[in-house]
């Protein structure tokens, strides 16, 4: 690991000021589960690292009055996994938190880190896409909100400017007749990265699908929605046959590559399997 300057802001304002003064290649440190290995292996050599651990606001979860959920960017995966409010209405997000790394990793790894690293395989991205979350960003020019689907611009690239940081994710309440599920495939049970991840969210009204969201991870440079599959479901009574058809359509949204974690063929195969399974679970949860 190379030498670097460590800055410890005590508030969001201080952090914005520190970012403005720091060199453009500076890095924000939340849990460090992704940043530190990159520093140790010399893949990143920033002159300055800004530690977010002194900013309490980034670690808060607010679930207010059916308005939806606000999750601070430094909330850990372990908190997402266990938090009652998250589990009550945003179960797919809790499930994605529960799959990251190991318990030790989840005690450190954060939602914001997972999103801002912008790995195509980020587990928390598909549930956020399926839940229509918005990213709340702050910087020297003030706050702005970006739909999560527009947040990712490429592999390890986001809309964040060098002087901005992610403050929280705002997630609308999907309502009581809605259910979600996140599943991923990994060769190992834990301490692994998704070969494919799929989140589904189904909202029912009068026995039909009022709204469908299917989001895929690790099958394109950024997390993607399977919109054709969503449209096939919306307005319909959701049957096993329809789920099967939607799963086939979801494959078309995938543009996977072959790499050390899996071939493109296997990834397409998994999109079909995991879409079918997450839709089946989401349907059961929406009805329950």
């Amino acid at each position, binding site marked *: *690991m*190379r*030498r670097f300057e460590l800055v410890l802001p005590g508030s969001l304002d201080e952090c914005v000021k520190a970012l403005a003064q720091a060199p453009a290649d500076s890095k924000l440190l939340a849990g460090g589960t992704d940043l530190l*290995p990159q520093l*140790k*292996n*010399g893949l990143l*050599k920033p002159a300055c690292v800004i530690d977010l651990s002194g900013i309490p606001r980034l670690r808060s979860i607010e679930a207010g009055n059916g308005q939806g959920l606000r999750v601070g960017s430094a909330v850990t995966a372990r908190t997402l996994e266990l938090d009652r409010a998250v589990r009550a209405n945003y179960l797919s997000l809790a499930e994605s938190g529960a799959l990251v790394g*190991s318990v030790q990793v989840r005690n450190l790894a954060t939602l914001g880190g997972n999103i801002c690293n912008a790995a195509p395989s980020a587990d928390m991205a598909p549930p956020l896409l399926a839940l229509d979350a918005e990213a709340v960003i702050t910087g020297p020019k003030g706050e702005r909100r970006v739909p999560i689907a527009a947040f990712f611009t490429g592999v390890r690239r986001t809309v964040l400017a060098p002087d901005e940081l992610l403050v929280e994710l705002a997630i609308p309440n999907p309502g009581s007749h809605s259910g979600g599920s996140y599943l991923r*495939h990994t*060769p*190992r*049970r*834990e*301490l*692994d*990265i998704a*070969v494919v991840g799929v989140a589904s969210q189904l909202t029912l009204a009068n026995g039909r699908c009022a709204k469908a969201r299917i989001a895929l991870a690790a099958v394109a440079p950024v997390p993607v929605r399977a919109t054709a599959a969503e449209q096939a479901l919306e307005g319909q009574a959701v049957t096993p046959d329809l789920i099967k058809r939607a799963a086939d359509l979801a494959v078309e949204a995938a543009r996977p590559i072959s*790499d*050390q*974690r*899996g*071939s493109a*063929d*296997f990834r397409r*195969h*998994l999109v079909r*399997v995991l879409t079918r399974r997450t839709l089946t679970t989401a349907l059961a949860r929406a009805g329950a």
Partner: protein
Amino acid sequence: MSTVMKTTRDVKGIGLSIPRPDGPDKVTGQVQYVADLNPRGLLHAKLLRSPHAHAKIVRIDVSRARALPGVRAVLTAADIPVLKKKAPTRAHAVLAIDRVVFAGQPVAAVAADEPAIAEEALDLIDVQYEVLPVAADPLESMKPGAPPVAELGTEADTSEAQAHGSVAGVTTEVKSSKAVNISQQARLQRGDVAKAFAESDVVIENTYRVPMVHQGYLEPHAVLAQWDTAGNLTLWASTQGSFNTRSEVADVLELPENRIKVIPMECGGGFGGKIRALCEPITAVLARATNRPVRYVMTRREELEAGMPAPQVIIKLKTGVKRDGTLMALEAEAILESGAFSGAVLAVAGVFLASLYLWPHFDVKGFEVLTHKPSIAAYRAPVAPQTIFAIDSQMEQIARKLGVDPVEFRLRHLQREGDKMANNQPWLSNGGVEVLTRLAEHPFWKKRAEWKASAKDGKLRGTGLSLGGWLGGLQPTGATVRLNPDGTLQVLTGQVDIAGTNIALAQIAATAYGVDIDKVKITTGDTDVAPLTGLSAGSKTTYTVGVAVMQAAQNARNQTLEIAAKELEASVHDLEIDGDRVVVRGVPDKGVTLASIGKKGNLYMSKVEPVLGASHPAFSVQAPAFCGQLARIEVDPDTGEVTLHNFVVVQDVGKAINPAQIEGQMQGGAVQSLGMALTEALMYDDKARLTNPSLLDYRKLTAADLPNIETIIVEKPAPHGPFGARGVGEPPIVPAPAAIANAIEDATGVRLTHLPLSPERIALAIASAS
């Protein structure tokens, strides 16, 4: 050696599950490893490694690195006169001279006040490469015209095979003239293969492929080097053999061996990967250049990119049998990819393929092929898991095709003591039949049909077993046993304890001398003080050093009794050791304490000789050791995920000196075997660069992936082992790949021949079969 010691009463020694005394310090983090040492003036080393697998070094400029404050030395090959271009081993290739032959090969070395400064210095070294064509695939590399790996005229390295001492009598030729990257060839033949195939009813042909895998020791390679003003070098090393490290470093640096002291530190795992010298020579050179102690610790990424993994093994295997199950012919071509330097145990592959089951006609060709990848080393039973994966998978398929019981089929053809191996040496006493028979008696095997039928929720269930083993290594060794002035015993060897062997050796000393284990302390000495000894490898520490310790303890006992006989005016034959006294048998009042004998051996003006038992045996008789494993699994046919529900390990250990330590070996070996079976592979792109250089993507199994591992010890005494013991370390890594492949076929009907048996391979095979 085979006679069991007669002691006059039972002592607390062999056969007891005594915990390792070093265990608590290890689990509480109090043990000092090389990386924990902190001598005054310590410098930290880092190596600049080639990003290219094959390239000419046009120019290296280290001037900016040397100018960085805190940097004490920056060296290239030009600064080390002893380096030669035709380096026979990785240890000799300290720094690349004018050509790099694998990605990760060191080209420059830095010593600095802090690790971070050394890393910054690496960034300031400017190397200009001219990239050359790469031999990345062994099947391409073995053809004429492939880009050459070794310098022309470099000798093949067969010392690894000798170190493991496992196979005699195989003709190994070196080099063919045109295919420059074939560094060794071997051939084993018997009978008329063509005729026997023509007379066969069932012929099965497969190509088995096992990728390079990494040993995965917890502690990376680490060494600390320091010179004194008289020109003596001390190395604090993480090694499986301090004398071997000393010899290799002496050879590379052209030093007399007695000028080098190797202090073997606690070794955080080796599994064959810490036999050969790797970073010791460059660290010694940096220490000399700076006149300071210098430490080098490899990072995990460096371990994966530039360690010494197991070879990739490709086996084309064709077998013919009669409809009645008679074995007819076996034809095989085994290709071992050794990376950039020769060193594979080619003969082992040939012998296991053609000797485990008795083929009247066979023709086995072996090739060691060089590629532009890191050179390989041993990995726990080198080449045995790969070879057994092929031959056992094949036996299972034949049995299924013939519709016969797969265990009965194996037992019918399994070698017995006295049968001729493929190299015409006789099979020695072994428990192969006993192990397989015991495994087949297990309820999981008997109830495999019920398990298969119990599948639900779209999942599939299956059971598989396999039998494998290891021929056992041999190497001369030595030990001393002293009686202390207080009557306690002190055992000294030079043997590095990588597996809990020291407690077993202490138990052997206790029983052989005739005192309880709490009276015995064992020490692994450094190369200046300990008796010369071999590697901790080849499953031979207990088997060979155990004999030395047993004989040294018997020798010390005899000396003790002779001294006591004079004191007591009794015949030696009438004496026995009872607790802390030597007494006259039947006259318990008449005796002398061990402490008084010990004290007189160290008393001013005493005429009593101090008790010093010694033994330094060499060996000629191996003790093959077999292990059988059974897996009960569930497969998700859609995702290809395999869930291990139960795993059983049965192993012949000859005599269990310390059952708990042996069970630990059986479980640990099984876990590594399962990793090879299911998830592990070093993956390279077409430029021979590693694409998974972290433990995230190089997947060792975790506790979450593993089931309860049941261990069953079988004891068929080894005629020449200490108290009948056999080696136990290597056999349990052998069988799982075949056992899992067999279980997958049982569950899904799909036969897979390439490791790892990954979810992708399983799911896509099922999808294309249906």
